[in-house]
């Protein structure tokens, strides 16, 4: 039995750890197009900001591969998968055999066809090398234009802002973080960004990256406004990294299609993490939810099934914790309720940077948006969303900052606090 994993992040580690619970001996190979020991991509903004160091970037310690009997093939891009011959083809035409394959290639930055996007100081911001290159030239950089004020854009801005680089961000939507927050919550974050000296332009877009020769020196917006800069970061979002399996027969919809065991339509080929579309348990639709905790969980379920286990994926829902300094935010589940049957409870204390919104459907908690000190104890709400039990008995307490187990029925508390979990 040969296990092969394409990708080297959360889902891959989840898979390795699950496989080794079931199968101590058979070899595992990990292929990565990066040169690094398994590291944490979300840490690149902290590295840029100087808030963490290179030696703290790693997600597992240096013995991880050795202890788990994993062979690594680094710095090699996979160009194809032959599911008939059970082989993965590398860019140097080398082939690697497998019996069980996991595709855990994550997301790849989406760069729209903006004129001038290929100039050399136009970056994306998802990999260690992106941060490294930006850090290398950062001393000479005074002004950056960031395209996109979503999660990735915000993290890049935070990093640049921390090292004193002037930033303008251009966002197509009317608000920052529009996919994670609602309008009132976004405004609190935008105000903090502006107080930190970031210029925020919304309802607009970059139509051209201008420059001298190969070097970008500015951007032109839809309304003809021109902004000079030394660097452009495109941070519009990520899409599942599936280019290399286009001709493999593996079914792709919005992401790779998998069943509840994380197996694709091809037997023996599994997929997990940001590259798949998996079940959103709140909407019952399959969609990519590119977040770390679900990637690890899906990888773990794939690994278990690859090695004889029977675990199933019960679904997840979007959740994010992101902080622009002074404005921590946590968003959970459905945050833009559309259609019938939703009820929102809102406490807006924008003046003090605090906001809490609770979204209920059929007596169940289905979403929440928290800004400021209301992020404390957010996980209790996550738990209630996961459990989908009625919250009507304590609905009037859900907006309280000190909402907790004392507000829940005695039986629920006994279940949670007095038994082993």
């Amino acid at each position, binding site marked *: 039995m040969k296990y092969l994993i394409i990708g080297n992040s959360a889902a891959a580690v989840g898979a390795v750890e699950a496989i080794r619970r079931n199968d101590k001996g058979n070899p595992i190979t990990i292929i990565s197009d990066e040169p690094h020991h398994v590291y944490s991509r979300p840490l690149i903004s902290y590295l840029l900001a100087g808030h963490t160091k290179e030696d703290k970037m790693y997600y597992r310690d240096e013995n991880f591969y050795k202890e788990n009997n994993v062979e690594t093939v680094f710095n090699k891009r996979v160009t194809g998968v032959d599911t008939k011959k059970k082989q993965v083809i590398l860019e140097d035409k080398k082939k690697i055999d497998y019996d069980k394959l996991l595709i855990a290639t994550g997301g790849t930055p989406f760069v729209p066809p903006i004129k001038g996007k290929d100039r050399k100081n136009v970056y994306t911001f998802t990999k260690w090398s992106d941060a490294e290159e930006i850090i290398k030239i950062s001393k000479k950089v005074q002004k950056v234009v960031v395209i996109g004020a979503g999660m990735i854009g915000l993290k890049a801005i935070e990093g640049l802002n921390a090292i004193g680089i002037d930033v303008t961000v251009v966002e197509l939507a009317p608000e920052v973080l529009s996919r994670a927050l609602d309008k009132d919550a976004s405004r609190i974050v935008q105000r903090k960004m502006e107080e930190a000296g970031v210029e925020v332009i919304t309802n607009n877009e970059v139509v051209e990256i201008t420059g001298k020769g190969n070097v970008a020196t500015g951007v032109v917006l839809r309304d003809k406004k021109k902004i000079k800069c030394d660097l452009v970061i495109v941070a519009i979002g990520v899409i599942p990294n599936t280019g290399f399996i286009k001709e493999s027969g593996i079914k792709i919809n919005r992401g790779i299609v998998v069943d509840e065991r994380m197996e694709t339509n091809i037997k023996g080929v599994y997929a997990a993490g940001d590259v798949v579309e998996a079940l959103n348990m709140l909407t019952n639709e399959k969609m990519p939810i590119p977040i770390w905790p679900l990637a690890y969980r899906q990888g773990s379920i794939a690994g278990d099934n690859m090695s004889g286990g029977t675990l199933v994926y019960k679904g997840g829902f979007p959740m994010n914790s992101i902080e622009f300094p002074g404005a921590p935010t946590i968003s959970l589940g459905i945050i833009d309720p559309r259609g019938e049957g939703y009820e929102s409870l809102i406490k807006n204390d924008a003046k003090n940077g605090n906001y809490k919104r609770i979204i209920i459907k059929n007596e169940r908690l289905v979403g929440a948006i928290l800004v400021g000190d209301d992020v404390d104890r957010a996980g209790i709400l*996550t738990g209630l969303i996961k459990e989908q039990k009625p919250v009507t008995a304590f609905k009037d307490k859900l907006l309280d900052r*000190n909402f907790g187990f004392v507000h829940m029925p005695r039986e629920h508390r006994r279940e949670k606090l007095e038994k082993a*979990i």
Partner: protein
Amino acid sequence: MKIVYPKEEACMACRLCEVACITEHSKSKDTLKAYKKENPTPLSRTLVEEIFPGLSVSVMCRHCSDAPCIEACFTSAMHRKPDGRVIVNEPKCVGCWMCIMACPFGVIKRNQYIGEGQGARGKGQEIKIKLSSKCDLCPDRSIPACVEACPNKALAHEER
């Protein structure tokens, strides 16, 4: 594994568990110094929830066998010790609050203070440090400080 279980019928919201926890997690191990002098001010890793009068319960980490906080942590600061305890490796933590988002018990705290940075920028400088703090079951003690401090046996250190 032995963890701390609350018994709400015996809890009278005296919060001595919080005091004991703060003292145990201070540098000086002296209650008054811990409260008045130390930077960072140590945080209690247990929280007494209360509806006055009559209902209170001290809530702290359950050291879940399938811990959502570990899964959510992208730095691997949140990890499980071989003895089963779920622990924060503080130097690795960057204060992203993913664990706070994930913990269904709401027992992980935002620990924020001004201190010396450890990255490229903050080295030797005073910057805002952010990290997650939670119950570590008092590794230097045979019985956790909160359990020992409770005057009414409302906390039990046992295996269930």
